[in-house]
């Protein structure tokens, strides 16, 4: 992982813990192409079992803040944000989210 991504993870973890709650355990970020074939950042916020089920309102606000903070640092790639809930089999999120690079077909972007 690059130093920049590590910095983003730290920034996002601090922000999400503050805005969503202490139930945000960790944050993982990856650089990938998005649905429009644009370079983007994919943040996974790993929540623990104490996270409430309905966090939509706070999530949206926290996501905007994250985007604004990154833009203020000159980062213009869109930050996609996903909550990851506890898995009963303890399978790490990174292994499950193992899409090939750029696998989101461009042809699908307009539908």
């Amino acid at each position, binding site marked *: 992982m690059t130093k920049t991504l590590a910095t983003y993870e730290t920034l996002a973890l601090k922000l999400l813990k503050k805005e969503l709650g202490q139930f945000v355990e960790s944050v993982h970020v990856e650089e990938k192409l998005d*649905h429009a074939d644009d370079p983007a950042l994919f943040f996974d916020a790993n929540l623990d079992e104490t996270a409430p*089920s309905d966090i*939509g309102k706070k999530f949206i606000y926290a996501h*905007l803040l994250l985007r604004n903070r990154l833009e203020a640092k000159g980062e213009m790639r869109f930050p996609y944000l*996903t909550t990851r809930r506890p898995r009963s089999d303890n399978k790490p999120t990174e292994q499950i989210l193992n899409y090939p690079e750029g696998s989101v077909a461009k042809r699908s972007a*307009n539908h």
Partner: protein
Amino acid sequence: MIDSLLALAAELSVKVNANEADLRRATSTAYYAAFHALCEMLADQMIPLKKSPLDVRLSRLYVRVYRSVKHEHIWKRDLFQNSDATKTVQTSLDNLRQKRIEADYIPLTFPYLSTEVNDFISEARETVANIRALNEADRLSLTVNMLIGPEKPETGQKKNTK
């Protein structure tokens, strides 16, 4: 329709033993609920009298405006730069759209749990609420940007050659 889509998405995701197809449909439906809320806002702004069943012409115009919103609009940031409220809407719509593409087009194992799909639905529900709560200036700005295009940056005054 929008609230029914949200309800359907929730129903699919909380089904006992919801399978992958249920979770994919729930994710896609959640995005579409939010997308339709944007289409509806735009059409309501342009053709506020659409509810008159007698006026076929107005109904046709309403549908034309409604259908003028394209999915590509969602990731064009300059269309949503009017305020924090519109930027919030774009951020959520783009986030939901990414999940919807994964749900509808990526044939690998769907990587989200039903609890995570519930989070997408919760996000979609709030996005619909945020679109419906946009003030008049934001509604107008979005409508004009989507129908005509974003305002071009000023290039300065023309030189006086006299």
